[in-house]
């Protein structure tokens, strides 16, 4: 637990931390980097940073060698710069996941006041502290009643901002206690939302774009660290390399809603529940082999090979049907209008029915594309003859 004055060094992503330690940070990170790597901390910071990256490659939840000291603050900036130079989305997401998780565990140790302070004073969130606690309902176990009580509530708009990328069922506004403009939540849940904030923060490029990458690479210590990370990442990446559907199915025939999920997965972004179901049922319907579907999910931050294999097999046995476009529209997963995809927006001409028909499901989209493709290649071969 840290007292109020330490917060800034413990949590380098806090706005006041940056002011305190970097008030004279030059626009070009070169100066900062060369200072670090010519100082006595050079070795230690390199080692600790590499630990973080290594753990991130392996999707670990925590790092043993992590200390809340001043060096931690420098390390935060160094990590951000490294991520910008490496420019690999999958890697960035993994580091962001890990880093935010480490911070989550540390925040759990903070007292109520510090959490309140971080939310309101630092992050400008409208969080209210209820010293006496407020009962916002009951839980019912068999025939026993237990009050649910909390010291925290958060303004619904701030809540929506924080959960924007989470969007799992538990975070949905409708499934939460909302009253008088505030969502009541447990301290732990609030901290979980702060974790989201950290995750996004590390991905954010606030340091002025690094235009002279070469300048940085001329700094010996930095270059060495960068090369070490790159090499280790390359090895690891080959193992988890995202599965490209290069078998019988051509992924370029997939509709926009599916493409969107594929590119998210490719970048190691978390998928919400409905996105996972959609892609799972879709790939199953196209008879993509189970192992390949499991590989698809391997980029997820919470990937667990055994669990996923079980779930995919289970879904296959059950034989679920792919979502219809109509459902996807109501779930806000349809991309037809955003991507202005013609087959999606205008439909296709059905010869048998002599009418323009709308497509009803992502599968049908694939069929229309395949059909067109066959027709085109047939036409081509006609010309050749």
């Amino acid at each position, binding site marked *: 637990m840290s007292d109020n004055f330490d917060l800034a060094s413990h949590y380098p992503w806090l706005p006041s931390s940056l002011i305190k330690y970097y008030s004279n940070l030059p626009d070009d990170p070169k100066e900062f980097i060369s200072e670090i790597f010519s100082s006595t901390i050079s070795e230690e910071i390199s080692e600790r940073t590499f630990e973080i990256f290594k753990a991130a490659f392996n999707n670990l939840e925590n790092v043993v060698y992590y200390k809340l000291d001043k060096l931690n603050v420098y390390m935060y900036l160094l990590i951000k710069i490294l991520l910008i130079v490496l420019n690999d989305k999958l890697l960035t997401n993994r580091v962001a996941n890990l880093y935010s998780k480490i911070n989550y565990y540390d925040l759990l140790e903070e007292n109520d006041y510090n959490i309140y302070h971080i939310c309101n004073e630092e992050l400008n969130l409208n969080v209210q502290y209820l010293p006496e606690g407020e009962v916002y309902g009951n839980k019912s176990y068999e*025939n026993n009643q237990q009050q649910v009580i909390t010291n925290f509530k958060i303004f619904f708009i701030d809540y929506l901002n924080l959960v924007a990328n989470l969007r799992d069922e538990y975070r949905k506004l409708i499934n939460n206690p909302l*009253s008088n403009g505030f969502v009541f939540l447990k301290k732990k849940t609030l901290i979980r939302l702060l974790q989201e904030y950290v995750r996004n923060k590390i991905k954010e490029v606030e340091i002025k774009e690094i235009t002279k990458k070469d300048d940085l690479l001329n700094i010996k210590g930095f270059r060495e660290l960068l090369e070490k990370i790159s090499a280790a990442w390359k090895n690891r990446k080959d193992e988890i390399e995202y599965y490209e559907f290069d078998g019988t199915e051509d992924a370029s025939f997939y509709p926009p809603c599916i493409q969107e999920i594929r590119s998210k997965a490719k970048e190691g972004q978390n998928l919400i529940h409905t996105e996972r179901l959609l892609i799972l049922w879709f790939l199953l319907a196209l008879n993509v082999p189970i192992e390949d579907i499991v590989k698809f999910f391997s980029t997820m931050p919470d990937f667990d090979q055994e669990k996923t294999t079980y779930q995919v097999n289970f879904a296959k046995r059950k034989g679920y049907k792919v979502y219809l476009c109509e459902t996807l529209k109501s779930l806000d997963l349809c991309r037809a209008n955003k991507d202005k995809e013609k087959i999606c927006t205008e439909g296709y001409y059905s010869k048998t029915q002599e009418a323009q028909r709308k497509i009803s499901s992502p599968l049908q989209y694939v069929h229309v594309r395949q059909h067109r493709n066959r027709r085109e290649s047939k036409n081509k071969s006609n010309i050749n003859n």
Partner: protein
Amino acid sequence: MSDIDYLKRLFQDYYRKKTNQIPPIDSLNQREFGFIPWDDIIIMNRHISFVNYEAFKNYLSKFSPRHIYSSGALYNNPDHTDMNKKGYLGCDFLIDIDVDHFYTPCKKDHDLWYCKKCGKNGIGMAPNKCPKCENSQFKSLSWICEKCLSLAKNEIFKLIEDFLLPDFKINKEELKVVFSGHRGYHLKIENEKIRNLSGAERREIVDYLTGENISYEILGLNDLNSNLYFLEDNYGWTKKIINKIKKNIHDYPNDVLKDILSDFGLNREIIEYILNDKNNFLKNLWKIKGLGEKTWVNFLKNITKNLGAKIDVPVSIDIHRLIRYPGSLHGSTGFRVQELSLSELETFKPLNEINQEIDPIVFAEKKDVKIKIEILENKVPSIKIKGKTYGPYNKGTIEIIPLHVAVFLLCKGVAKTRSFIDD
């Protein structure tokens, strides 16, 4: 003079003489405007903007378009034709409640549909597929009616009193309500913070307002083994659902209740049990023979649907929507898009309003003007305006009617004018 020219002249007259009744909206110069002119082909001219309120009013008196819209969004360059270059600054939260989008029992008395392919017709809301030829395109005649409009008004009050005020604590002053001029109401929330919400964040609010995507599992409502009365104090939707069940059970006499419960998917045996144990059944669901989780969840879904507000979802999510401008005339009825304060709304009667200030039937002012019209459609339902019923009519009917009724029928495109000299 053609009927279209005639209508246009009437509209123009309104826009010239009543400009003071067209209120300026907040940040008018940053809004995008859209107009549908009096042409045969209906195309909206979008991406129009005005430097100020005066310029907008001048435009109206000069061109007097048939339909007038403005954006919920604010832009740096509202007239840029490329959406990405408009410089989006934020968008008011828009809510559209329109009986077109939900079931009302009286539609079978006044709405008609025709299959575009085989010509089959029917009453009420158009089906998804034509029962005769399976085609899915219809021409429909959706009529305006007091009962429908009062149901739409209930939905607005439900929205405000059950959701926006108690749960979201929206400031009453930030709520702008208008009668749409046709079959519903629009509500706009003008709040700085809400303006910045993304589409996905708006979706979360919409789900909350409609009850869509609720999880009974997370809320603990699907657990037949536990005492659900314990959950009645839980903030948010849980409380709404438990209270609704309790209220229904206590408010309705048994014979009505039987019908309601069976409409909600419960069978006779289950209903019997509930009626015999009115004050206790929610803690003893597991005792009810034949009540499985599936049936119970289905019942909860019906309760949820009943509690949720019936809003037109895409309107609230799409940040680039245009919405009818308050004070303008609706080109399919000739009625004014009428701004209303919440207290005015309570007693407001769109088709028979006595307070002239907020009377949407603006052409009723000219009481003595009568018009001779001829009906063009096979069947035209009746309409009750200003306490008097006109119609139903059949094709070819010729009648002399007051100006405001004639404007309505002409705007609807179901009649044409006949000059007196004709006969």
